Structures are given as structure tokens and as C-alpha cells.
């Protein structure tokens, strides 16, 4: 009998507003469910704790990116992008990871950070959040608690 909490590995439905080059999924559930201690269960307390930490950390990092971009602080932006890239990739937020990697590469290339550069990362984060909510892995309240500042 199939356990409804377990989902086969594979990308979720691509986002409508995703540009054509965005081949990465917002959320790779297969990666997420293979995380240590999760054992393929959506209900896993470890997964809940991981997601909770992921959301709060990423929201704070996005804020940091905005501040860094406004201040033109390239090393800060690069470091944050690197950190987000690793964490996102590890948890299965593939597109967010890809955007963070692009930003990091851009910063490595010596470009001065601009608010527009951060925007793509923020959009990917927004989509990731929505995917988490729609998958029932995050409550709407939990999401709006971190989304607010980004809207501003």
C-alpha cells in the first residue's frame, strides 16, 4: 500500500512565471525527503525542524543581500550568496540554489552588486516558499511571517 506522505522523487510542477532558462524546480522533494533523519517522510520532525531553520535563515540572508546590494558591499553579497547556494542545494530548493550560484559567480567576477541582481534570488525564494506552502510543508502563517519584509 502506498504511503501518501511519501512522494516519488522528481521535480514539482514548473512555475508559470519562470523564464524559459529556469529549468530547475522550485523545490526538489526527492532531495528533501532523502535528507538525513527524514527517511522519506513528510511528517518527519527532523524535516520540520530543517525547514523551519531553512526558512528563517534564508529570509534573513535575503534581507542581508538587499542590504548588501544597497550598500554596494560585494564581499558580503558574495558570502551570503555562497552560503545560500549550499544550503538551498542541500535541502532541494534547486532554483534558489541556482540563482544564488549565479549571484555568487557574478560577484566573484568583480561586479558591483545591484538591487536588481538580488531580485532574481528573491523571486526564486518567493516561489520556493509558495511551493513549500502548496506542498503543505509550510503553513501560510509561517510563510507570510517571512515574506512580509521581502514585499516591502
Amino acid at each position: 500500500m502506498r504511503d501518501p506522505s511519501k512522494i516519488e522523487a522528481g521535480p514539482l510542477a514548473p512555475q508559470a512565471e519562470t523564464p524559459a532558462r529556469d529549468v530547475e524546480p522550485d523545490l526538489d522533494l526527492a532531495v528533501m525527503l532523502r535528507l538525513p533523519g527524514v527517511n522519506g517522510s513528510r511528517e518527519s520532525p527532523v524535516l520540520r525542524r530543517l525547514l523551519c531553520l531553512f526558512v528563517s535563515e534564508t529570509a534573513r540572508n535575503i534581507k542581508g543581500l538587499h542590504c548588501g546590494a544597497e550598500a554596494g558591499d560585494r564581499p558580503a553579497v558574495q558570502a551570503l550568496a555562497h552560503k545560500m547556494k549550499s544550503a538551498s542545494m542541500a535541502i532541494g530548493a534547486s532554483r534558489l540554489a541556482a540563482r544564488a550560484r549565479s549571484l555568487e559567480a557574478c560577484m566573484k567576477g568583480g561586479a558591483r552588486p545591484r538591487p536588481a541582481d538580488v531580485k532574481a534570488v528573491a523571486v526564486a525564494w518567493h516561489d520556493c516558499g509558495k511551493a513549500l506552502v502548496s506542498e503543505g510543508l509550510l503553513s501560510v502563517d509561517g510563510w507570510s511571517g517571512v515574506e512580509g519584509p521581502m514585499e516591502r
Partner: protein
Amino acid sequence: MTASLDAHILVVDDDPLTRMMAVEALREGGFTTVEAENGAQALAVFDVEHPDLVLLDVMMPGLSGFDVCARLRGSPAGKLVPIIMMTGLDDSESVEEAFHVGATDFISKPVNWTLLRFRIRYVLRSAQVLKELVRNQESLSSAQRIARLGSWEWLVPTDTVQRSPQYYRLFGLPAEGFGDGMLAVLDHLYGPDRALLAAALEGARKGAGYQLTYRIVWPDGSVRTLLETVERADDLPDPQALVMEGSAQDITEQVETQRRIRQLAYFDPLTGLPNREFFRESLLAATARALRSKTRCAVMVVDIDRFARINDSLGPERGDQVLQVIGQRLRETMGDRMPAEPAGGGALPRLKVARLAADEFGILIGEAGSVDDMLAIAHALLQVVRGPIRVPGQEITLAARVGVAILPDHASDADALLKAAETALNRAKRVTRDEVALFSEEMKVAAFRRFTLEGELRRAIGEEELQVLYQPIVDVERGCIVKAEALVRWPHMASGPVPPPEFISLAEETGMIVPLTRTVIERVCHDIATLGPALPQDFRIGINLSGVNFMDPQFMPTVCAVLAGAAVEPARIEFELTETVLMRDLDYATNILARLRQMGIRVAVDDFGTGYSSLAYLRRLAVDTLKIDRSFVGELNNAQGVAIVKAIIGLAHSLGLEVVAEGVETTAQLDILRAQGCRLIQGYLFAKPMGCRALVHALAGARLMPVGS
């Protein structure tokens, strides 16, 4: 993979999410964890927790993962701990840098947690092996240090040498001060041993092993001895890959101990000359050589005449100095010199002069010439001994005798040769008084007779074959016998009487004088007890004691036991001792004589005038009688002889001592002695030694007159 089961892992990452995932993954793998969110914290936690492994992120604010890794490797605790660095997937630069700073392994992000768990277990196992290897190396190094053992490996084709730290320590040098290449060792070698090692290394270059003892010189100039064993490290026939390995051990102390043992075993500590054992072994070798090559070999035994006098009169310290001087002179005369020793000590050197006994030196001449040549050498040695010797305060002149024997003329083996030389010497000392005595067949016969006599005497003492005779001592004023001297005789049932000087000197040499004297005392006591009232009041019997008797610790107990056993009054006994015996240990003599006097036993000084005739000792010792030696009595036909006897009698009278003249044979002698106030006379003029019964008759007889008057 037991090594990984309880492993404690430090997870270092600034990203809490990665840390949480890592901790969870490791917990699932059975590990315990501790976390740090930056480099500084990681170093602090490491010091407290001592983790078995560190999982370390590269990119962190503040100290990077590379910095942390480098610092851990620089600390003693972090030197060997496995460190796995988490690098970017496409970040080959980080991978390179991680290797450079000493990371054990790396894993790319995103981390495959399953793979990580396996990798950790592999890494922990390797770390365990490495740790054991290091521990083994350390214990090997300690073992080498304790055993003062160093090792090296020589790749011959490139002359590359890998030397252990302990090897350098054997040379007292730091590694950098030693020099490169195998031959660098020769620079530190003790000169005379350099060629030896160079030759051995030349052989080793071709694959030949060796074991060699050589000496090295430390930077402070001290010389130490190493024992080196070298073998081929491989069995490959390829000379291009020849590897030799060697181990060297410092055996300086062992060599020194052996040298000291040898010195103690083979050399006389006083003179530094070889001792009797050395001489015997050298003699064995020399006689074997001579017999093989049909040549001659000679032994001379040099004896210092009356050496005991030096010790007695000047003290043993001066005596020792004199022996050292004589030893040195003999060594120089014979051209003996200690050869330089090879490393590790060598065989016994060939030396000619040895100290065989207290005042006896042995000379070994390996390739002896003619008998005349040997006698000439013996006379030369005598001259050397005779040269004046200065000791603080005075100059001493000694005389000596030399016994000479030659192989094959006088003996056919080493022991017999030495014995022959000693026999010649003893004969000269006892009988002929020659200064140089060459062994002869006659001596051999005499020596054999003496040897036979020894067994006979032992038997004679046991079987009571010895007789005790009494020679009366007459008081010429009263005309009666007042004393008698007990004299031992050996009639010898089988081969006729043995002259007393012969068997008494034999008894003294062999220690048989102790039972012999006891036998005499027992017999005298028995006779006194038997005669009982037949003996006049105050009649005493004199018994001769040798030095051996006097120094025997059992002497006093024996005397007490024998007297008590026979119920004889001690006042009946007078012991006769020579001056020389009394002078040998004046304190001892004082003590014994005082005890004898306390018991009531009197003491006479025998042969007075032939020894030291020291007035000081006469005053100090409890003696009662002086006996004028027969040699002085025999000289009474001239004025000088008369003067001497007169002096002795005067001395005795003034000290309140009795005086007895021995060996009186003529009335002329008697008249002079009487005229000088000597009234106690012993000699053939009145009576020969006689048996107990005859003595009783004599005692009971009429007034005693000189024989023939």
C-alpha cells in the same frame, strides 16, 4: 571498522542548516558530534573535546576552514587527527588548498550524507593505522634511545642515507652537523679505526654485510665505541636498487667493563704488571710456539731477598713503593710496553715481566738463546734490582736471587717450566745461596724428594713417628740441669733420619708446622706429667715456635687445651721464639706475650743477635730469657766475637733477663761465657739431646761436669 563506532566528530560550518544536516547524518551513522559555527570556536572546542575527526567547511567568515586546518596541524594534539574538508563541487582550487594545509580528505557540497558516513569510517581506520605506526615508531625510537642504538638505510646507487635521529645522537651530533652521503661517517671516526670502516663500507657498496666494532670521536673530544651490524635490505639482484641497512650500538661501557674485568683478572693492581694468571697463559702460548718451532723458551723467577724486612721495618706502604720501582725497572729492562688496543679490546698482549707473588717476579723469554745468554740476562736483572731505591727519608739497597729454567732443556711444558724455575730459586734460597740458579737434574731429584717427603711427614705426624728429645741447659754455678729444650727428631723408619732443618722448613712451607708443634707440646706435657715429682722445682722445658704457630689464631686456645688436658702447670713451659717472628707484628706479639706471662708461661728469644736485636722491643715485650745464638758462641775465639757476646750478656743482665748460651762445645767457650757472667749453658759440652728416660737419669745424677773434663 570498530575504530569508527564510538568516534566523536567536530562539525564546523557557519551555516546552521548544513550543521543540522551533518549532525543528523552523523548521528544516524552512530557517531557523536559537537558543533562550531566559526573557526575560532572550532579551535576552542577542539582543545576541550579532543574529537576523533573534524568535518570542516572551507568558506567561513573570520578564520577560514584552511586556517583552522593549518592551525590544528601545527598543534601536537591536532597533528594526526583526521580532517575532512567540505568544498564546492567545482572548486578544484579549494581541494588543492585543502591538501596543501594538511586535510586528510575532502567531500564536495552538496554533501552526499551516506557517502560521508562511509568516508568517515575509512578515514578513521587509516587514522588508527597511522596512529599505531607513529606509536610504533616512537616506541622503536625510545627503544633505540634506551639501547643506545641507531639505524640507517643506504640507497647505494644514489648514495642517499636515511639515518635515525638516535643514530646522530650516538655521535653526539645534530643531523645537520653529520654530513651527507655514507662516507660522511668516516669524518667522525677515531683515526686508527678509519681505514677498517672504510674497507667495510667499500664491501657494503657491493652488497657485502659486516659486523664491526669501531671508535668514534664526539665533538667534545671523547672517544666512544660502536658495534655496527650491516646487512643487505633486499634480495634483488639488481645493483641499481641496492639498499644496505645498518644498526649501530654504543658499547663503550661494555668494552670498558670488559677491559676492567680483564685488568682485574690479568694484572696486578699494585705494579700494573701482568699477574700470575696472565704469566701462566702467556707461558702456555710461548711453550706451545717453542715446541712447534723447535726453539727454546726460558722462564726466570726473581725473588727479592728478605723483602719482609722492608715491610716490617718501613711499613707496607714503603714496601709497596719499592715493589713498584722494581716492577718498573724490570719492565724497562725487558722492553715491555703495553701495545695500543684495537676497538673492543684485543687478545692478551705479549709481555715478558709479571708479578707472580708478593716479592716474586716472573720473566718469560719466548725465543731464548743459549744458556749463557739466559744467565747473562739473569745477572743483568739482578743488577737492576740492586740499584739504590729512594723512598722518602732513605735509600734502600736490595739483593735478589733468580731461578732460571729453559724449555726443552729442563721441562717439556709450561707448568713444569715455571715449576723448574721456582725450584731452582728455592734451592738457591734454602741451600746454595747462589744469586743466579739454573735448574738442574739434581734439583729435580731434590724437589721430588721434597715432594715425597711432604706426604711422608704428614703420615709421620699422624702416626707419631716423630720423636721429642731434650737437650739439658745447665746452671754451671750450681752444677745442675735447670731447663731443657725440647727438640723434634724424625728417625724415619724406612729411609733413615731426616735432618730437622729439612723437615721443619717443609712443615713451615706447607702449614704442617701447626699439627707438628701441637704434637710436640702434647708430648712434652705428657712427659712432664709422667715424670711428675722427678722434675726439680722450677724446672722448665723450652718448646720452639715458628712464626706460623705464633700467628695461628688457634695457638692460644690450643696451648690452654693441651696444658689443661695433661694437667701440667704452665710454669713448666717456656716458648722459644726468634726475634724475626716477634718483630713481624709487634702489637700482636705484645698482646700474646702478655697473655702467656699472665698464664705463667715464660718466653725466650731464640737466636738472639741474628735478627734486629732491637732494644725497644725487648723493653716492650714480656720476654724472660735471651738465648745467644750458636754462631756467636762459635766466634768466641776472637776479640770481636767476645765483644758481641759480652754486649748481649750485659744487655740481658741490665734488662733483668736470663741469658742462655747455645751451642757451647768447648771449655774455652765455657770459660769466657762464665767470665762474662753467663751461667746457663746449652751444648754438647755438657749434653746432647736425649730421651725422656735419659733426662730423668741426668737429673738424678751427680753434679754435672763438662763432657771429657
